[in-house]
Structure formats: C-alpha cells, structure tokens
C-alpha cells in the first residue's frame, strides 16, 4: 500500500511539474502522436474510431445496394472494386467479405476501441480526479497496438484473395480451410493476427482503467461517489480483461489449425473433393471459446453507453439519477451474468437440451437488471426540468432503442423460440437495435456532451438535431420491419433471396430498407463533417461548466493541459448527483457539505 501511495504522490509531483513547463518541452510528435496524455489518447481513439465507422458503414451501404436490388448493376462499383464487382455487380464472395468486415469493424474497432478507448481514457481520470492514467506509457501502447491492428486489418482488404469472409464470428471449419472459401486464405490469417494485436491493445487499456479507478481516486472520491460513467467503464474493463484472453486463445488455436496442421477444430472433413486427415477436433469448441468473449463483448459495447446515458439523463433533467445503488448493482449483475450466458448463441448446434435450459434461465435473468435500469432511467426524467441538448436527445434515443432491442432478446433467449428465429433477420434486427444503434446513440450522446471538454468548442446544434431525428427515425425504419422478415424465417447472410419461394415476398421491403440505410449513412457523414469542422471552427466554450454538471471534469480549465488541474487536485465531498437539492439547481462534487444541508 505504501509503495502505491508513494508512487502515486511521485506521479502527482511529476505531473504537477510537468504541467508548469510542458509548453516549452512538447514537440508535435510528443503532443499529437506519441502522446502519453490520456486526453490526447482518447482523441486518437475517437478519430481512429470515426474513420473505421465510416469504412464499416460504407461497407453496409454497398451490400445493402445488392440486397435492395439484386438485379441492378452499378458500373462505378467496378471502378472501385475491380474484379470483385465485374460489370458493376457485386461478387458473392466479396459480398460476404463486406458483411464480415462490416461486423468486425463495427463490433471491435468502433464500438469497443472507439467507444471504450475514447471515453474510458477521457473520463476516468477527469471524473475521479486523477492527473492521468496509472500507466500513461501502457496507455500510449494500448493506442499504438490498436493502430497496428487497424493497419493489418486494413491491409487485409487489399490482398488478392480478399479479406476474411466467413462472418465476424469466423466459425471454423469455414474459416480454417482455404479450400472452402477464398476469404479463408491469407485474408483470414491477417484477420487473426490483427485481432490478436487488438486484444493486446484492449488488455493494456483495460488493466490500466481498472488500476486507475482502484488506486488514483482523489481525496473524498469513495467508490460510491463515483459517477455512473466511471462505474460502467470500470465494469467494461473488467469484462474485457477476463474475456478477451479466451478469444485470443481461440484465435491462436485457429491459426495453428490453419498453418501448422493441428486438429483443434477439424474432424471428418471432405472439402473440394479432398479427404482431410484431421480427426478428433470439434468445430463446436471454437464456438464456445468465441462466445465466451462474444457475449461479454455485447456488454463491453453496451455498458459504456449505459453509463454515459445515465450521467447525461441526470444532468439534463436537472435531477439526481434515480436509484444510484440499484444502477451500480444492476451493472454488477449484468457483468456477472454476461459470463454465464454465452451458449445461448448455440441452441441449435446440437447442444445438450438440459445445458440449453440452464442457459435459457441465466439469459432471461439478465432481463431483470436491464429492466431495473430502464425503470430507473424513466424515473430519472420523471418530474425533471429537461433540457434537450444534443447529448440528451441521444441519451433518450438510447433508452428507447435499448427497450426495443432488449425486449426482442426475450424472444431469442428462449430456446424454444430460438429454434425458429436463430440466424434470421429477427436476430439482425435485435442485435443491431440493442447493441449496434443503441451503443452508437450512447457514443453520440457522449461525443456531444463531452465535445466541449475535448476540444474547447461546441458542435453545431442544428446539425446535431438533424442528425438525431433522421438517425432515430431511420434506425427504426430499417430495423423494425426486419423482425417480420425474421418471423418468416428469412435467413441472414444471404446474397440474394429472389430464388426462394419462402422469402422473395420481401423484395420491395428490402429495397425500402436499403434506401433508408443510404439516407441514414449520409446523415452520419453530416455528423462527421460537423465534428471535424467544429474542432477548428466551432463556437468557443466560454464558461467552465456549460451544462451545469456536478462531476469533476468541469472543474478543470476549459482546455486542460497534461495533468488536468493546474493547482491542487480537487477534493470531493459528495456524490455526483446533487441536482435540485435544497432549492439549489446543482451542487458540484467539490463543494463542501453545508451544516444545514439535508441528507439524501
């Protein structure tokens, strides 16, 4: 304990020192590229994430063109994609590559690295009153491992045989055998290597976040006085640290099967007319390893969005978050349960029905903490005095989408229904709403809310309103009707439905969905323009605390330097949700408790 304290105070001294003269020392490279300032690293994660989001989103638009009108040709596609779109028609193999990369990019590179990487880095030290992360060096490495993973994943898009194309879940044997699919040639190796580096990045980041939250809280900042954002980011890091290594092991075994002739996942295979010698492996083993990360991953994506929305809903309702301890408790319950439900992705793999029933029970149990969160959010805005800042709009949108997508999870988690709905568009609709769009909304809420702290400027409000309303309407128009396609059993990952008597009745609907997807994508580009324009030309922030919030980040200078607070670290005297208390609009966390103040 002593050494930790000593280290901590040494670090604070070092930072305090740093703060006074860093303006002379910093070069462009140390400030913007190999920066160890958590705020700069957060911005690096965010901007890299945005670039990935544009690429991943664009891929979905291209494959939606194919689904919208399977007979149309787009000559310009051939200009961009060459032999992958001969005559302007997407090749099925490349269609599958796009689907795979869309999933990989958005799940891992955008909603894991882009979301946690940005906000855990930015908010944890600022909200707990620390000068930086516990290890700024590891933090920097975390970004650069992510960058390396990004470069490798990007390069896989340019190899002759194409990028990985077996779906983002890369189930072997499809992903293990180059003969089975051209995307399972070099593209798959690059995918696995890139993901390995990605996992290293995520682990470095996660360990750092956990250590920082546990050790570097400022005076008075007990765990129960931490903002819910920090709690959520903390649990996210715990989830990542405990589950990502399992995927790493799964990926390495797959690399062995692919390149060293092992049979972890392979047995009794005849591919392309050739009998393979592998015996004794199990293709299902990989699914267990994958989903042991894969399901917690859903919550790695969701929890930060939940935390940020809780904070933003409270600030803009000018009301304390309702049931703080229940909110923390439900985050904790979700974190535990997240590890115990992975096989609900595998009800139709031939899983033992009894084992399946255990997973049904545990899966539906997650609905209880989720319901608590929803009702607490509703009570938080009840009798508030709501200001519809762009951040608030997206936080409300998040709650709406979380309800819609969460409820369909009750269908899919019930194995009796899953045997009909598994791998249909119902699943697509469910997880896009609940973890895709909802998490994006949480992320947008966070960006709009903390942009003034990140860049010292505001985003343009009118563009933000357009962005919000078009996106929420568009998201529902895209994904709501997909439930009906799923009820009809329409399978996901199909390149063309027109030859199926059972599914071709949805041709017009698919066209409509593609059109809406195109519009929604265009509006996201509008956001990106707003984002980059406002970094340089946005309206300047002139007050320390533009939203009237209680948390510590608003006690720093408008554009805090490395070390965050120019003088002493602030001391915390209360929880972060004293809004509307004792007739005061808000009481910041660093305000001492008055003698006549009521207790909450």
């Amino acid at each position, binding site marked *: 304990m002593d050494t930790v304290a000593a280290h901590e105070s040494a670090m604070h001294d070092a930072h305090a020192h740093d703060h006074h003269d860093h303006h002379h020392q910093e070069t462009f490279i140390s400030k913007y590229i190999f920066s160890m300032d958590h705020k700069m690293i957060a911005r690096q994660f965010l901007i890299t994430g945005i670039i990935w989001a544009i690429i991943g989103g664009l891929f979905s638009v291209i494959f939606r063109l194919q689904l919208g009108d399977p007979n149309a040709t787009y000559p310009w596609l051939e200009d961009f994609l060459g032999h992958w779109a001969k005559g302007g028609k997407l090749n099925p193999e490349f269609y599958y590559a796009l689907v795979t990369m869309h999933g990989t990019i958005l799940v891992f590179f955008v909603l894991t690295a882009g979301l946690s990487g940005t906000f855990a880095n930015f908010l944890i030290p600022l909200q707990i009153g620390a000068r930086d992360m516990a290890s700024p060096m590891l933090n920097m490495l975390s970004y650069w491992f992510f960058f390396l993973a990004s470069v490798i994943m990007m390069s896989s898009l340019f190899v002759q045989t194409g990028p990985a194309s077996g779906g983002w879940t890369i189930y072997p044997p499809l992903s293990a055998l180059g003969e089975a699919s051209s995307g399972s040639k070099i593209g798959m190796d690059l995918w696995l290597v890139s993901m390995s580096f990605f996992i290293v990045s995520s682990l470095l980041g996660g360990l750092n976040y956990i250590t920082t939250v546990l050790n570097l809280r400022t005076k008075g900042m007990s765990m129960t006085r931490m903002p819910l954002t920090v709690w959520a980011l903390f649990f996210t890091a715990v989830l990542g640290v405990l589950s990502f290594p399992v995927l790493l092991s799964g990926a390495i075994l797959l690399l062995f099967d692919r390149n060293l002739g092992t049979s972890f996942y392979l047995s009794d295979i005849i591919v392309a007319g050739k009998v393979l010698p592998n015996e004794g492996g199990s*293709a299902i083993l990989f699914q267990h390893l994958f989903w042991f990360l894969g399901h917690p991953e859903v919550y790695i994506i969701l929890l930060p969005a939940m935390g940020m929305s809780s904070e933003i809903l409270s600030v803009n309702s000018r009301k304390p978050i309702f049931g703080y301890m229940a909110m923390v408790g439900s985050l904790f319950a979700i974190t535990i349960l997240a590890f115990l439900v992975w096989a609900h992705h595998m009800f139709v793999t031939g899983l033992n029905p009894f084992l399946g029933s255990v997973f049904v029970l545990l899966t539906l149990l997650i609905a209880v903490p989720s319901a608590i969160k929803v009702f607490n959010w509703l009570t938080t805005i009840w009798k508030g005095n709501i200001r519809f800042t762009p951040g608030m709009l997206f936080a409300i949108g998040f709650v709406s989408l979380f309800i819609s997508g969460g409820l369909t999870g009750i269908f899919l988690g019930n194995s009796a229904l899953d045997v009909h709905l598994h791998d249909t568009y119902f699943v697509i609709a469910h997880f896009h709403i609940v973890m895709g769009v909802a998490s994006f909304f949480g992320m947008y809420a966070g960006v709009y809310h903390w942009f003034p702290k990140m860049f010292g400027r505001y985003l343009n409000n009118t563009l933000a309103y357009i962005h919000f309303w078009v996106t929420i309407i568009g998201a529902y128009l895209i994904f709501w009707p997909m439930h009906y396609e799923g009820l009809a059993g329409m399978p996901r990952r199909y390149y063309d439905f027109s030859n199926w008597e059972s599914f071709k009745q949805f041709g017009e609907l698919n066209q409509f969905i593609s059109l809406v997807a195109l519009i929604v994508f265009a509006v996201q580009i509008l956001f990106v323009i707003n984002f980059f324009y406002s970094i340089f030309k946005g309206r300047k922030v002139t007050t320390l605390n533009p939203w009237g919030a209680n948390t510590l980040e608003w006690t720093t200078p408008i554009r805090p330097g490395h070390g965050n607070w120019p003088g002493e670290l602030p001391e915390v005297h209360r929880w972060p949700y004293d809004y509307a208390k004792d007739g005061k609009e808000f009481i910041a966390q660093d305000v001492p408790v008055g003698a006549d103040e009521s207790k909450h």
Partner: protein
Amino acid sequence: MKDLYLVAITAMIFIVIFQIAKASEYVSVLKGEEKSRKQNNKINAFLMIAFLILGFIGAWYCNELYFGKTLFPQGSASVEGEKIDEMLYITTAVTGLVFIITQTLLFWFAYKYQEQDGKKAFYFPHNNKLELIWTTVPAIFLTVLVVFGLKFWFRITADAPKEAIVVEITGHQFAWDMRYPGVDNKLGKKNYKLYNKPSGNTLAVDFADPDSHDDLHTTEMHLPVGKPVKLVINAQDVIHDVGLSHFRLKMDAVPGIPTTMWFTPKYTTEEMKKRTGNPNFVYEISCDQMCGKGHFSMRGVIVVETEEQYNKWLSEQKPEYLTLHPEKDPSKAKENQATTDTTAKQQVVAQMIKP
C-alpha cells in the same frame, strides 16, 4: 455521367444543409442565445411526443403490411411447431405490453417535463419500495416465460418417437443430399475416408456394411404427412444448418458431429398450396449457417405427400448400392440398357413434383 450528377447533387445538399446550420448559429447569437435555446427546447419536446405517436402508427401500419407475409397466418406446418407459435404469441403479448408502456412513459415524460421557466426539478434520488416492485414484477413475468419456454423446449428436444421415419440429410457446399434407410429401416455405416467422387460414393457410405445395401440416396426429401420424422444431420465440409421455417425448426449440420431433430408434418405440399393461396408453394430447406460463397443458394426441397404417394415414391427409388455396383443388381439382367438408372430416377422425381 449520371453518377457524376448524383454525386454533385448530394454534395450540394450537404453544403446547403451545412450553410443553413451555420447561419442558424449566427441567428441565435443575434436573437440571444438563451432565447433561441429555449425555442429549440420546445421544438424538440414537441418532436418527442410526435415521434411517439407517429411511431406507434408506423408500427401498426408495418404490421398491417407485413404480418400477412410472415408464416404465422398459415400456422405451423408441423405439430411441434404449434407450440413454438403459441410461445411466440405469449412472448409477443408480454413484451408488447412492456414496450408500449415504457416507450409511452419515456417520450411522454420527455415532452411533459420539458424545461419551463421558474420550474424546479423534483429531488427524488431513490425509493426502495418502487425499486423492489420493478425488480420483482419483471422477475415474475420472466419466470412465466421461462417455464413455458422450457416446457416446449424439452418437448421439441425429447427423443423422437420409436416409430419415426429416419432420414439422413447431409450438407456440403452448396447442396443437400438425403439418405433413406430402405426396407431394413437401418442406415448403413459411413466413413468419411471412403468418399470417392469418381466411383459415385459421394456420401462416403461404407458398403461393407450390409445395412447400407438397401439405402436410398436422393436429392429431394419426401415425407408422409402426419408421421413423425427424425432427421439425422451431417455435414461434410463446413458447418451448415437445416433451416425448416415452415416447420419452425432448425439444427446445425456439423462436420464430425451428427445431430438430430424430429417433427411431424401436418399438411401435404398440395394442402399448403391451398392454405397459402400460392400455387408455387414448396417446403424449402434453407441453409441457415454461413457456409461460403454459395450459402444463399443452398436450397433443398421437401415434398410432403400422402402415405400412398410416399410409399409409391419410395418403391421407385433404387438403392445406391445397386446404382454403384450394377453387377450386383438382380433386376439388371432383365432390363435393357435403354435408360440409365439415374435418368430414370430423375424422371420419377420430376413427375412427383409436378402438381
């Protein structure tokens, strides 16, 4: 050229929207930022309630348009699937109710409690009674759903009835193959290493096992109506999935690990044509697990027919053993070589699927 225009028009729209947004910022400075903020607040609050109402109308309209196109108005085509439909309706009722209540509260609160001058928010940090209620009520509802769900689940996954017809289905990139056990009702052993395309043994059957000698190899599945059928599911190369949306079932086909699934077809294909009003109706097997570039075209067909039709069809099939080893065929001597066995089989199949 057309594309170029499109790009130009899109860029123009972007610039116009951007300029309007920029101008609105200047206008708000002129008008007073506080005043324009309050105006925006009112507009967004109104949009919240409008979104709620239009959203519900949209959801209803969507149901009008597409419910008829799902498989549910026709009902399940298998006896076991009826339970799944029932479960679906129960779940929809429960979640639908929660959906309507929570979404209404969310957007109505957002509208009702919009910022107003002189109003103070209500300090309400927690209330244990309320929290207890909304922990237990969802827990009770979920228990009900779990109980119903597991009851159906165990029924679906229970062992198939002893009298069930056994059909083996094998998936490979990108087609399905069926094997019927023949008169002895036993499927012959398989060994994947015996796969031999030139000799025609594409299912890797071990013909040393006498049980295999009367096994039938077909590319279309025929089933009698009203009889339980047990599918033994195999895959040769990658994971596939036997998706039977009309029967409400699916099961993965995993190389090296055979799986099973059973059901009882309720309606013949002909009956379904009438029920759906679609003269082209056909039971389709869709591959529901991503299996490579031809995944979307991995289609199989099931013909459900009366027992007589089914037996007639069975009797017309020739055991694969005899097709591959014509010298062992006792009937071969009588027959002339005018038609090969395979074309004969195809003709029969073609006749069967003709309405």
